[in-house]
């Protein structure tokens, strides 16, 4: 399996706080990985480092062998890394369809100036984009909401739309930030199914930050555990479940019990 994403000694400090400390981690082509850890362990910060929201204080992050430093958030998306947000960030006033259309700009065939001329090439391009956006919405059962403003969608649908929007950028790696937050057990089962479907159908790798042990243990092939910004363990779900360091990190947190249950 070819390596896709690689973090080498990735570190970021905010003032005196080292939020992520010398983390080594890799995601391979087609893999479904999980990143877990207690609250404030630095999981989302790792996402922000990968996606260029923050620049690492030291260390190196590369994607497909290419150093991501200095590419900017939009440049990194262009290479094929898409993400969702812990607190969903849709374009609230735009229609569901337009949320997806906006994400199709990376693969637009005509230059912006064509919007003024509106020649055949422009119209074909627009039609293709709308068709593709509609197709994506249908796959994820969002077609019936097409013209509704995104902010009017129910919570679960908003989460799905955020994933659809990511897929419209044609990513090779999908980063999901706590997709199960606020979901009940039935919805979580549904989510696990969805994540696996996405990976299969769109042929991509997924890195998951998650609090819900059920979801992480239920679908990830490899899991890394962060605590206070340091990677304390990495391995298969079975290895992680029994790792004494992991259990210790989670003890005293209510997650300790949820870890024991699985």
């Amino acid at each position, binding site marked *: 399996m070819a390596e896709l994403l690689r973090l080498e000694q990735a570190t970021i400090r905010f003032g005196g706080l080292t939020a992520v400390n010398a983390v080594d981690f890799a995601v391979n082509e087609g893999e479904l990985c999980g990143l877990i850890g207690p609250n404030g362990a630095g999981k989302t910060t790792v996402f922000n480092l990968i996606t260029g929201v923050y620049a690492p204080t030291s260390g190196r992050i590369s994607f497909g062998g290419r150093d991501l430093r200095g590419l900017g958030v939009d440049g990194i998306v262009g290479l094929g890394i898409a993400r969702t947000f812990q607190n969903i*960030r849709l374009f*609230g006033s*735009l229609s569901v369809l337009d949320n997806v*259309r*906006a994400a199709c700009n990376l693969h637009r065939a005509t230059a*912006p100036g064509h919007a*003024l001329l*509106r020649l055949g090439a422009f119209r074909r391009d627009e039609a293709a984009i709308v068709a593709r956006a509609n197709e994506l919405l249908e796959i994820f059962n969002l077609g019936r909401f097409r013209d509704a403003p995104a902010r009017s969608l129910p919570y679960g649908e908003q989460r799905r739309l955020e994933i659809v929007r990511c897929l419209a*950028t044609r990513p090779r790696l999908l980063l999901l930030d706590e997709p199960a937050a606020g979901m009940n057990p039935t919805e979580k089962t549904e989510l696990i199914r969805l994540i696996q479907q996405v990976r299969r159908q769109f042929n991509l790798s997924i890195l998951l930050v998650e609090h819900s042990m059920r979801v992480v243990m239920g679908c990830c092939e490899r899991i890394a555990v962060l605590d206070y910004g340091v990677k304390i363990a990495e391995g298969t779900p079975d290895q992680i479940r029994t790792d004494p360091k992991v259990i210790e990190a989670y003890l005293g947190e209510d997650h300790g019990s949820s870890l024991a249950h699985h």
Partner: protein
Amino acid sequence: MPRPHVALLLALAAAYGVSHFPGGLDPYLLDVLTGIGINIILAVSLNLVNGYTGQFSLGHAGFMSVGAYLSSAVSLFVAPKLVGELSAAGEVTQGAVFLAALITGGFCAALAGLFVGVPSLRLRGDYLALVTLGFGEIIRVIFQNVEILGGALGLNAIPGSTTLTWVLAVAAVTVFVVHCLVDSTYGRGFLATRDDEIAAAAVGLNPTRYKIVAFVVAAFFAGVAGGLYAHFKLTITPTGFDFTRSIEIVVMVILGGMGNAVGVILAAVLLTVLPEVLRPIAEYRMILYSLLLVLLMLLRPQGLFNFPARRPRG
């Protein structure tokens, strides 16, 4: 032919028709209509920045003044050297010179927009409003100090090339350009930037570039509007473009319901006509105007003309 193009051609034909109205129009009406047209250009272009892209610019009058001054400079100083006495030239030459003057004004304003926008557009909300206001005031002070452009006295004896046809034609082009730009997959990026910059970047859009494009395009049309204004009023002074003028334009955009093209046009018409209608109560009209502004924000914050809208067509 695509629908926007048909609409544009019809509007241009109508603009041409207005000037060849049998018997001509009443001069007072002509005055008001010209004012409406110029305000439509200003409001619709600012709507691209404040409405669609969600940035708060308070410097539109500054860009207008750049266009007004530079286009007047072309008409007053450059054109006579190139084509000789303007009044002696043929109608086509006069038109060509005026077009060149307007476009020069527009480009200079766009350049100023680029110069202002690149450093300041990473600021948000009221900070951006202040920086643009600051730039607008700096532009004004600079014009006050440039002797060749008349200093504090301004420029006068500008040729009266602005006709209703010119104004309406430019207004039609402005509406067309802004509409076409926004109503496309590319244009969804302006709206996405407005709704959530971080999310916009996360789907591969470059919010900064969108903001700058919006800013520069808007500045261009503000500059052209300034040129039309100068060649309509025949004299301009730096104080005519202070930030109360910018606020007037912002109010049109807000009244129209930010990002609602038809509403903004209606608001531009209403706010140009209102002072005329209120003329009998003279000094109280500005009190009424400001009171309406406050009440509007309190009672109808979404704008006067923003109704549960049709979705824009895909």
